């Protein structure tokens, strides 16, 4: 049977208050895609970290902006895209930092990126300064045997 891609979008004001709502959204979609409870929580964590970084760093904790979370389920793959129109960042700079430096500088957002990278199978950034930042992450569904 041919598979078709399913797409879901959530747009919320840029307040940390909405992280709980974002996790609910991810949980429902992760379960629908066939991920088990442990992996659903990992997906929640990855998207939470991405959105928390957007709210804290791209928007400087200003709640008047928007964060868009787009989820795509395609066969055995789930993709999440977190989109904002705030300040961009240089992913290479953060990836060079060692874990102890990230821990000491815990407000850098680097710890969250480290978590995202360890959870997801692929992470890509598309940063257009002053226009749009997109964090795209993908996780493959483990086939049940």
């Amino acid at each position, binding site marked *: 049977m041919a598979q078709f891609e399913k797409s879901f979008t959530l747009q919320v004001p840029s*307040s*940390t*208050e909405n*992280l*709980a709502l974002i*996790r609910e959204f991810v949980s429902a979609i992760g379960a629908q895609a066939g991920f088990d*409870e*442990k992996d659903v*929580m*990992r997906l*929640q*964590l990855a998207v*939470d*970290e991405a959105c*928390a970084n957007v*709210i*804290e760093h791209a928007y400087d904790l200003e709640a008047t902006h928007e964060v868009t979370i787009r989820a795509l389920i395609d066969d055995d793959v789930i993709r999440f895209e977190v989109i904002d129109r705030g300040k961009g960042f240089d992913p290479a700079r953060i990836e060079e930092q060692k*874990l102890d430096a990230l*821990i*000491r500088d*815990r*407000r850098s957002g680097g*710890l*969250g990126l*480290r*978590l995202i990278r*360890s*959870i997801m199978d692929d992470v890509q950034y598309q940063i257009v300064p002053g226009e749009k930042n997109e964090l795209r992450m993908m996780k493959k569904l483990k086939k049940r045997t």
Partner: protein
Amino acid sequence: MSTNFQIERTELGGAVVLALDGFLDAHTAPQFENAISSEVEAGHLHLVADCRKLSYISSAGLGVFMSFIEEIREKGGDIKLSGIEPKVYQVFEVLGFHELFDIVDHVEAAVALFDQGSKRKD
């Protein structure tokens, strides 16, 4: 909107036990930060985070532990953790935090660790 995170404070065997209940994320981490800060200011340096009812933790929550641990240990205290659910524990594991903290099953065992000294390897 009410926050989905609460802290209950008790004292046990000379230690302060902070029972964490709910979701510890970037929104609720300041609550936890304030709670630990108050204890440190009051000179209470034997702290146990009872995580039995902790449903979720993100890097913002882990960051609170990390931001105080150096100061507390320098002053002769520590933060021990107890009762972490497996799905929450995996977050500690991903970042290697389980090697930085004493983590045990029960609050009583965590409190007893203060009499035995830290198992932590520097």
